[in-house]
């Protein structure tokens, strides 16, 4: 296929957190609001006068400072975020929003407070940490909504005078949904047997939509969508297996590239920083406040393994199964960031369920944040693709 017109531009935007568009938005007088976890609703960070930046640590080569503070026995992603924040890589932020949803992530974010990071550049900078429920009962939804109000909206209003009215939230939802429409339509194309977009390209676009001011990136995303709609595909698809990828944080498109090099087409990105969930429309129901809609949306769509209630546990498996069916996938890849407690157990249970209960070929893989162990991963992925091919040759028998 012909290269996408803006692909290199998008790739460049992913080279650093404080990219060209972030700088432009800051120059426009807008407040950059950082976050990493899905439980911090992106939409609320895009209220008038603000823009969201989902933090990454691209180009991490070592995490010496992060390792000193968090030891080498903690999640490499969070250590990389800490390293970058200590280096001053997030000094452009006006505020950081976090939640105590994952021990290591919230620890890394706490260093903004402990070390007084960013404060020197921006004395108004603040870190806000909220509580997120482990279940999805009625009380849990109410609790989550209260937390969003208290730990996101109210501080924004108090410190930066942001309009947090229902009308403002509705406007933000409207703009958010436009981005979601674009990404979702691009994502839906992956269901085709010969998709007009590669999984690498999709990963880049999804990340760009999370890491750049949405009002500045929307036009180019829309243009890319139009380009993809008309894109002429190769006569034959060049993948050997269609895989649903699920798991913890993946914010490096090079990882998807590695999978593609092994003959994998990532049909569905059900991992942190992925689009499933993340790019579904937020629906405001009749009589419901905009904030209630946001709380309901994020709590109900989240597929995080920290949800303990049975319904959510079952839903996580059935959602994956549904993705396999909808996207005509050949198998599932469970990814776990090294040292991630949530995904280590989820991977163990999920791989068992997929292989033994659902009969869906599945492997579980532990990975580092950087691509340092790409060689070992390549061997695993190639073997998995071959096993799927053998299964196909044998008419469904492994």
């Amino acid at each position, binding site marked *: 296929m012909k290269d996408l017109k803006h692909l290199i531009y998008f790739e460049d935007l992913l080279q650093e957190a404080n990219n060209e568009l972030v700088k432009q938005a800051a120059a426009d007088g807008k407040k950059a609001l950082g976050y990493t976890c899905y439980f911090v609703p992106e939409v609320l960070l895009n209220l008038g006068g603000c823009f969201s930046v989902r933090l990454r640590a691209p180009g991490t080569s070592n995490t010496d400072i992060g390792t*000193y*503070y*968090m*030891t080498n*026995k*903690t*999640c490499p992603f*969070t250590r990389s975020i800490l390293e970058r924040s200590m280096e001053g890589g997030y000094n452009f932020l006006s505020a950081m929003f976090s939640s*105590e949803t*994952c*021990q*290591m992530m919230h*620890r*890394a974010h*706490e260093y903004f*407070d*402990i070390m007084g990071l960013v404060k020197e550049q921006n004395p108004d900078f603040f870190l806000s*940490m*909220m*509580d*997120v*429920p*482990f*279940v999805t*009962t009625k*009380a*849990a939804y*109410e*609790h989550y909504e*209260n*937390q969003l109000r*208290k730990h996101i909206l109210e501080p924004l209003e108090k410190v930066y005078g942001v309009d947090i009215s229902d009308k403002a939230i509705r406007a933000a939802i409207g703009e958010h949904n436009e981005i979601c429409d674009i990404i979702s339509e691009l994502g839906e194309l992956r269901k085709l047997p010969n998709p007009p977009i590669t999984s690498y390209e999709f990963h880049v676009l999804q990340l760009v939509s999370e890491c750049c001011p949405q009002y500045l990136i929307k036009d180019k995303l829309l243009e890319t969508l139009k380009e993809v709609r008309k894109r002429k595909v190769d006569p034959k698809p060049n993948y050997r297996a269609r895989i649903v990828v699920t798991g913890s944080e993946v914010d490096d498109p090079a990882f998807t590239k590695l999978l593609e090099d092994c003959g994998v087409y990532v049909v569905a990105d059900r991992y942190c920083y992925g689009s499933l969930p993340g790019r579904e429309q937020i629906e405001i129901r009749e009589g419901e406040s905009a904030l209630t809609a946001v709380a309901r949306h994020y709590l109900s769509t989240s597929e995080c*393994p*920290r949800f*303990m*209630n*049975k319904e959510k*546990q079952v839903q996580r498996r059935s959602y994956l199964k549904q993705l396999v069916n909808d996207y005509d996938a050949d198998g599932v890849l469970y990814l*776990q960031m*090294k*040292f991630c*407690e*949530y995904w*280590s*157990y*989820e*991977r*163990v*249970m999920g*791989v*068992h369920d997929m292989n033994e209960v659902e009969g869906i070929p599945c492997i*579980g893989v*532990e990975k580092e944040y950087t691509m340092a162990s790409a060689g070992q991963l390549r061997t695993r992925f190639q073997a998995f693709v071959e096993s799927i091919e053998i299964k196909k040759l044998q008419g469904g028998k492994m």
Partner: protein
Amino acid sequence: MADERKRFYKGSGIAKHREWRGLKDTFYDYLQWVVNLGILAQFAAKSPVRIVKGLFEYRWFGGYIGALHMTDKCTAGLRGPALRTAHIQMHAIMKGTTGMLADSMIGDRRFGDTDAADKFVMLEQTMCPEIVAGFPNLKALPLEVLQGLLGTYMDQNLAPFYMDIMENVGLPADSCRLSANAAGVAINDDYPEVGACLITNNMPCDSSTMNSQLIERRIKIPTTVAGIPMRWEDESTDRYALAQMKEVIKFIEDTTGEKFDEKAFFKVMKQHNKEVRNEFEVWEYAKTPYTAFGNVISPLFHAFYFTFSGGSMPYIDKAAKKALKVAEKAYKNKTVSFDKARHRMITWGGPGCYFVDFNTWAYNCWGVLVPAQMDMFSGNVIISEDDLDDALLGIAHNYERGVMRRHLTGGYQHLLEVWDEAEKFNCDMVLVYDDITCKGAMGLAGVVNDQAKDKNKHLVWVQNDMFDHRTISRNEMRRQFSEYMTAVMQEEPLDESLVDFDDYEGW
């Protein structure tokens, strides 16, 4: 110089004879040993057939054979009032533990259908039993702790089998060992089939949130989740915490057919508060040079009643008051119970549970007295004795501040309370356990180091693998501490024979 290791068979923790503590203390110690035997006999008499069946059915049960040995190693070197408070507290621990073990077997459906099975509400992890207090016809029984933590105190070889099971199914070895052990017991179907229902929970951390889900899949009784807030100092979480407590109570009512009894509930809360107030008194003595509380058993007693009693075991209050009486007398007479102490050290973080007597060893080998350790500060919430909502919220607060949770969640400041506590307990040394799988604590390791430097404190790190002695053995833990004592503290050991010895094969 003493030569304590001579008393033991090489390579093990088995003593050739009991410790000589002088005529009076040796006789007292021997009598208490007989009392412990009596407690064990009472235990066996509760349901001999089922208990024997349990010993053959459950691998973990075998670890409890080391109970008397554990008592001996935890009381090693104690004299006078310190020996007396330790035994008083230990008797209560043994009575409670054997009672719960017996209940587990009596209600175990594996050994035949029994009405007794439905009289228990199973509580997972370190969830304490206050929430069951309003059901006088029901009893709370712990799931996980009996099969892991307590057993590992007695036998370091109990957990590795179960942790290996989890590694065989793909769980990384860097995952929390406490949770891995509990999940391994579930995979191996080694939990007694007892109880009308099970309350799982997110106590205390990420791994326990996840192992609960795995365990729930293997348990055949109705389950529900108590999802306790993490940001527990934030008052805006209270409403939700209270709602969770009410949902749990409704679940118990629905699954057992029992009705919540307010009168019975408040009676237990009163008892709970007595236990907490006793603890506060213990601290006041522990802060002084004339303390009769120190080393390992006092913190163990706290962890025990927090996790298992919560006001439901009347003998806990009795034992605490009896020990306090001994302590009061020692204080009035200015009796120095720990006369070998050259330093006072607070211990923090997740200890190596297979080396439960680390504090005792540090005292006997290096003259380092541990008057306080992190777990003592967990729980300790005074609960309302007349307002139901306030009381239920108090229970939630007690959970939120539970063992390990108190210091690892709700904000970094909680783990860093170590310096204030060290000051209060007049400690000149701080030991932080580097539990190599505890991510919540490790996430602040650098800050702890920085603060030690800023505050000019003696800080020693001792690595352990919580339940897995094969990774970092007891002797390796001793080596790390001894190195610090000679290199930094410039001390000579009180007993050279205790510095480096092999007990790898021991319980």
